[in-house]
Structure formats: structure tokens, C-alpha cells
């Protein structure tokens, strides 16, 4: 049985895990709090790794979620470079790679996700990498610079942000995408074509509908990406950005229900009342959309960290959030909210040619999702309207001379 005073053990020292520890203290939890993190550094923010940090506009210090002193001050034990390998729920212990066991009263699984890799010839060459951790970003940053050639495998947001950052650093960038358009998984066609044009105008080359056969190398380092047409795209470094896989093995092996990630409820609790799971690793209810989903965002990590911390500290649950995310590319700020499920129409407000517009996904007159390009008012208003499900006047929404305040109020 669990020893008294074992407190909360958080497996995973990312944005979700680090935030959960902070919220526990903020909500008045006084028991022991331990974070077990696989990476050698304290919890940090991943979004800048492909954005401001990669371009050199943010320093390492600014990545940190909290200052180093925070954990000692708040009596949070931070065990870094430590991997948890198994979970025995009956005994309430987590076993570490070293064989050491860590008891818990309450466990929070915040193991996140790992970048999907390509199982193709040459994928293990130096210079073929993913972009998920600070260590990955460090390697990529060193490889970028004037005259360098970056191949980006996968036209998703990580890849596009890496391409934009590469261009900002003077490197060449080629984006290779298996589908006929970029951003197929996350965005509508209009946004795909907008971003394709925007990147092309800034020197990025796209290879669409292009299957990859493997990577070519010389002396153990990548020199090119070979397409199935036989053509080779020469490069000095290749970033593979083809999605992430939830690190749900710890939960799965312990008999906790997993779908696309660890199944949790709206308190971020698993079927075991003493085990919670938060962040990228979870398969969670989305009441607004009447389904279960795995989300990949800071907003989700924070919302679930609050849910779990509130439940553990005996506080009322936090206000439900409309899911949102953002991307920075060149001078474009893309802000997205909601999910385009069960929608029957798309309405565009603003002017794509001026790089200032928003795409609203509608179900009848109710906004279900928005993708806003340099359009913060549209994003903020839609976030509220998606949550309230209040019908809007389509004519007003389409008319940029009617303010979003008025659209929201009418």
C-alpha cells in the first residue's frame, strides 16, 4: 500500500506536468509534490522551439516555464533525467529505470507525446531529425544559416514554422508533403493555399503529392531526400514533422483504458480514481463537440493541469475552455479556436490578399471553429461565441465594417 504522505507524483516534466505542480500549490495543496521528468532540464515551453527561439529571437532562459528557484520555493521535488518505466496501481508505486520505486497517493500521467519517425532507408543518418525537444531544436538551429539547405518532410505546422524560421536565418527550405496540399490534418483548404502562396513568395519550395523513398547520405550525414519519382532533393539537414504519438505505454501496461491516448474524464481522471492524466497523452471528452479527442496544444495542457489540480486540491473545477492554438510564421499570426466538426458552411471575413482574414466554420448560424490570420478580434470573439453557441448574423459576420463586438452582441 501507499505510504502515508507520498503525495502527488507527476510523471512527465513538460508544459502539462510543470503546470500541474504549480496549480496544485496555487490551489493550496500542501502534500508532497514530485515531478519525474525524462528530459535533463526543468519544464519548458515547446511552442517557441520552432518559432521565436529557432529564429534566435528568444533566449534559452525565456523558454523556461518557471525559474529554477520556483521548485525549491514551492517545495516541489524535481527529478530530472529520470525515466519512469512502469506503474503498479495495486501497490501505488512507479518504478524508475534504475529500479528504484516511488510511492504515490495520487498519480498524474503527463508523459506527453513523441515525434513520429520515418521507417525508411537512411532515416538514421546524421542530420535527419525530428523537432520536439529543446535538444532537437538545438541541433536544428546549429544546422541552419545562410547557404544551408533544409528539407522539411511533412507540411504541417511544425514543418512550416521550421521552414519560415530557416528562411529568416538565410537558409533555403524545401517542404515535401505526401498529400496534394499542406495542412491537410489541421486546416481547411483555403488556409492551405494561403500558406502555400505566402511561403512560396518568401522563397520556400514545395514538393506536393510527393512520396519519400529514403534519405541519401555521405560519410554518415544526410545529403538529400529521395522521392519515389527517383528525384533527389539535396539538403544539409532534414526535419521530419509528420505528427506525434502519445506516450501512453505506462498507462496501457498498467491496464488503464487507452484509445488514441489515455482515456480521461472532465476532471482529467482515469477510471482509477487515484490516477489522472493530462496534456498531449490524453484522449479526453469534448462536450461542445460531443466526442472524445486527443488534443495537441498548450491550451489543453493547461486546462487539464487545472482540472486535475483542482480535483486533487478539493477545489471547484475550472471554467471549461474552448480549445485554441496558434502559429507564428514570418509576420503572420495564426490563431485557431474550436474544431470544425459537423459544420455545413465556411464563411470568410476579411481579405486573404491583405493577409488579414478569418475563416469561420459554421453549423447553421453557430460558429464551431475559427482560423484567424492576423485577425485577433475575430479570434477572440469567436472563442467566446464558440463556447456560448450563440447564433450569429451571417451578413454582419461577413461584413468587415461591422465590428466583431457588434457581431458578438447582436
Amino acid at each position, binding site marked *: 500500500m501507499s505510504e502515508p504522505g507520498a503525495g502527488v507524483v507527476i510523471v512527465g516534466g513538460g508544459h502539462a506536468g510543470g503546470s500541474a505542480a504549480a496549480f496544485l500549490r496555487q490551489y493550496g495543496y500542501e502534500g508532497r509534490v514530485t515531478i519525474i521528468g525524462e528530459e535533463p532540464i526543468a519544464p519548458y515551453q515547446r511552442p517557441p522551439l520552432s518559432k521565436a527561439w529557432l529564429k534566435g529571437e528568444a533566449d534559452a532562459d525565456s523558454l523556461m516555464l518557471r525559474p529554477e528557484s520556483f521548485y525549491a520555493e514551492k517545495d516541489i521535488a524535481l527529478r530530472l533525467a529520470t525515466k519512469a518505466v512502469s506503474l503498479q496501481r495495486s501497490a501505488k508505486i512507479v518504478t524508475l529505470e534504475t529500479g528504484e520505486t516511488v510511492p504515490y497517493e495520487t498519480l498524474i500521467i503527463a508523459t506527453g507525446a513523441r515525434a513520429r519517425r520515418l521507417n525508411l532507408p537512411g532515416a538514421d543518418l546524421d542530420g535527419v531529425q525530428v523537432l520536439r525537444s529543446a535538444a532537437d531544436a538545438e541541433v536544428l538551429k546549429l544546422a541552419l544559416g545562410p547557404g544551408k539547405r533544409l528539407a522539411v518532410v511533412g507540411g504541417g505546422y511544425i514543418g512550416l514554422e521550421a521552414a519560415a524560421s530557416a528562411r529568416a536565418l538565410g537558409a533555403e527550405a524545401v517542404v515535401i508533403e505526401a498529400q496534394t496540399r499542406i495542412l491537410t490534418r489541421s486546416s481547411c483548404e483555403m488556409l492551405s493555399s494561403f500558406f502555400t502562396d505566402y511561403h512560396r513568395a518568401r522563397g520556400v519550395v514545395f514538393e506536393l503529392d510527393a512520396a519519400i523513398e529514403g534519405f541519401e547520405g555521405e560519410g554518415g550525414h544526410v545529403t538529400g531526400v529521395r522521392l519515389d519519382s527517383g528525384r533527389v532533393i539535396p539538403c544539409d539537414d532534414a526535419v521530419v514533422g509528420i505528427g506525434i504519438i502519445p506516450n501512453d505505454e505506462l498507462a496501457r501496461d498498467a491496464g488503464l483504458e487507452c484509445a488514441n491516448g489515455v482515456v480521461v474524464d472532465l476532471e482529467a481522471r482515469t477510471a482509477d480514481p487515484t490516477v489522472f492524466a493530462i496534456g498531449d497523452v490524453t484522449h479526453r471528452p469534448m462536450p461542445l463537440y460531443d466526442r472524445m479527442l486527443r488534443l495537441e496544444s498548450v491550451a489543453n495542457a493547461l486546462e487539464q493541469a487545472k482540472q486535475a489540480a483542482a480535483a486533487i486540491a478539493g477545489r471547484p473545477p475550472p471554467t471549461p475552455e474552448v480549445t485554441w492554438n496558434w502559429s507564428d510564421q514570418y509576420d503572420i499570426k495564426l490563431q485557431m479556436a474550436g474544431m470544425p466538426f459537423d459544420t455545413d458552411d465556411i464563411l470568410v471575413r476579411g481579405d486573404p490578399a491583405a493577409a488579414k482574414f478569418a475563416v469561420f466554420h459554421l453549423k447553421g448560424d453557430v460558429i464551431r471553429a475559427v482560423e484567424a490570420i492576423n485577425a485577433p478580434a475575430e479570434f477572440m470573439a469567436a472563442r467566446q461565441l464558440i463556447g456560448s453557441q450563440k447564433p450569429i448574423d451571417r451578413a454582419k459576420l461577413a461584413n468587415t465594417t461591422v465590428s466583431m*463586438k457588434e457581431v458578438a452582441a447582436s
Partner: protein
Amino acid sequence: MAKITYVEFNGKEHVVDVKTGLSVMEGAVKNNIPGIDADCGGACACATCHVYVDENWADKTGSQSAMEESMLDFAENVEPNSRLSCQIKVTDELDGLVVRMPQSQH
């Protein structure tokens, strides 16, 4: 370096030294001051680092950018002296700055 006073909604004051070049938001986060969430980490994407700038300091902290203004338009409890603290860069000129926090960032 500037001495900045952060006042929580409940009136609790935190006086800290913040390095020039950081944002007023970063000054709060680095000093573990509650009440400024900064969910997006300073990308001006979330409007959860909302503060009220003391009237005497409005000139020195500058004015809202168009982006910031649009974001604040839809935040809760917005006042004429509302700012997103991630958009205020700390300079020596801001030594003595006082910012107050709203009831909630969400």
C-alpha cells in the same frame, strides 16, 4: 533594471527587480507572482497577461498595438489603462512602475 510593483486583485503587493529587455509579463512569471497566467508565453496570442497600468505610467509604457487592442477588446473587465503585460518591454525608465491585476485572466 527596474523596480516593478505587481498588485494582485486581492491587494497583495509584490515588489521585484526586473531586468531591462524582459517584458512586464516575464518579470511576473520569473518571480512567481500569481495573477498573470501568460498561457501562450508572450506570443500575444491569448490575452491572459492582462494588467492595469497606474495612470502616472501610461506615457512611459507606451500605447496598445493594434493587435493588442483587438485582443483586449474581448478580454474581461477591460479599462482604459488595460494592457497585455507581454507587450510592455522593461526599460530603466520604468523603474517604479506599478501594475494591477484583474480578478481573473480567463
